[in-house]
């Protein structure tokens, strides 16, 4: 491995370059497209030379699309807002409920705890529609269909198990001795949890929260089934946008860029946590 020949180094370089090209090119191309007008997009043969324009983003921000057939009103910003609301609140609720529960699972072996853990584990890979389609009928009966609360509730099906698994693993890796000592010194259970356990599991909680946010943001099927146009996040909204806007390709590209930018930025900013969370979630889950 250390005595790589020159030929081998060149082959390695080519392989890495090909790989980067394959995985980066789609993102790069969509980004370029989002700064072009329809005329330059439709040029044949395609060319990298164009005068960049922000008109696509401006059209999305104002929600008014000028097309050949007239002006269309498409409120893509509402989808973006929905994505933020759904992801942020889902993760907040999941952390608030999931971290103490993960602590309970890690520290106390009580009756039923294994049953709950097993049920969550075995349904972690159940088809999402199996749960969501019957829920859709129930939600219509109890008036939760097409509400943020109903959607955030359903998002717990992905966020809460994820946080439970990853954070439980972190709590289990921490020795409980410090907590016992702190308890003996006369501190309450809650103080022990807040001052000792939480800070020690901090990186795990961050990793789990980030992953849960990205999974929630990228979720497609829940809102497709349970939300109507004004509650749908970008994943569903972008598809509807394609249908509604017809051939406004520059604006479609801009909508895709705005939709994937938050998760990609998070990935770059916190890649260490993400890799750790993914590996741990997979290995321990």
């Amino acid at each position, binding site marked *: *491995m250390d005595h790589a020949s020159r030929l081998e180094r060149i082959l390695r370089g080519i392989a*890495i370059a090909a*790989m980067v090209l*394959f*995985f980066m090119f*789609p*993102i790069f*191309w*969509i980004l370029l*497209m989002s700064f072009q007008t329809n005329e330059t*997009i439709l040029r044949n043969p*395609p060319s990298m030379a164009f005068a960049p324009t922000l008109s696509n983003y401006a059209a999305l921000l104002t929600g008014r699309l000028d097309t050949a057939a007239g002006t269309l009103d498409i409120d893509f910003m509402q989808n973006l807002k929905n994505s933020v609301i759904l992801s942020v609140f889902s993760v907040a609720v999941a952390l608030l409920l*999931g971290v103490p*529960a993960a*602590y*309970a699972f890690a520290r*106390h072996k*009580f009756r039923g*705890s294994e049953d*709950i853990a097993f*049920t*969550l584990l*075995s*349904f972690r*890979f159940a*088809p999402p*529609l*199996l749960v969501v*389609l*019957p829920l859709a*009928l129930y939600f219509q009966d109890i008036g939760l269909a097409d509400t943020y609360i109903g959607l955030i509730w359903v998002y*717990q*099906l992905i966020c*809460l*198990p994820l946080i439970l698994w990853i954070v439980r693993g972190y709590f289990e890796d921490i020795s409980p001795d410090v907590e*016992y000592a702190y*308890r*003996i010194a006369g501190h309450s*259970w809650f103080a022990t949890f807040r001052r000792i356990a939480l800070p020690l599991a901090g990186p795990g909680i961050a990793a789990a929260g980030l992953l849960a946010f990205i999974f929630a943001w*990228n979720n*497609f*099927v829940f809102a497709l*089934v349970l939300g109507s146009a004004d509650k749908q996040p*970008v*994943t569903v909204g*972008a*598809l509807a946008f394609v249908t509604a806007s017809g051939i406004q*390709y520059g604006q*479609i590209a801009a909508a*895709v860029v705005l939709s*994937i930018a938050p*998760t*990609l930025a*998070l990935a770059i900013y916190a890649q260490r946590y*993400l*890799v750790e969370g*993914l*590996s741990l979630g*997979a*290995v321990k889950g």
Partner: protein
Amino acid sequence: MAVTADIDGAARRRFRIGTRALPYLLSLPALLVCIGILIPFFTAVYYSLQRYRLSQPWAREMNWGETYWQLLTDPSFWNTLQVSLAYTFFAVGLQLVLGLGIALLLQERTRLNNVVSIMLLLPLMTAPALAALMWKLMTNPNFGILSYFVTLLGVEDFRWASSPETALMTVVLVDVWVYTPFIMILLLAGLRSLPRQPFEAAALDGVPRSFVFLRITLPMLMPYILTAVLFRLLEAIQQFDIIYAMTQGGPGNTLMVFQVEAYLNFFQSTNVARSAALLLILWAITFAISNVFIKNWLRLRERARGEI
């Protein structure tokens, strides 16, 4: 030592007694999620045993498994099974080969390798539905860059996802783009955590590298490979986002995988019973796969530990 053990034991007891109800209280949300999953699950079982169409509520009655029988004698069900399995096989197979290759390429912790592995994280963080949309734009016959490249190669009228011959290949390509990094990340973590001694010993003895790879690297990496493949198999056989966003199961029923078929049965033909039966069969398949894998995984892990 005895003293510490005593204190520890006392602390443990006090810790428990003071908080007997607490663990139950804390795990309540997890319990609620469990109930939130189990109620729809059994509801689906109940629906699947009925004749139940949303458009014909008056005809709703128990028919005890007739729906399943109708499914099994319907060629479209076997098409669904076949397409799902083909999609899973090609997608996961390609991802494993590519993911393993890339992990081996990036194994050393150099600055370049770290930057490249961050870049590879990006497709995985892209929502699969949006990834499908991106590839749909790239394969658009009028301006898609990939369509253009294909014409440069001399192939006329290559229609990607709109042609029955190439539709499966196109969605598999998107799946490979999104999920290869997942396998790569797990295997890279595995490779970097392997003990160094066997490799150093092999290098000292001048063992050929193909032998090192087949007899040392691969067996020691096997638990990681199995974990990664298990995750991918279970997700791929349930794939919905990419296929629905790309073609909604078309052209014709070329890409009618389980969840897309179930979704369309529910919302287009409002056949709730058939949709529920399809999803339960899919659930049984995933359950079987995960059981087989978990057993093998445990055995392999034990063997890996015993040998070293």
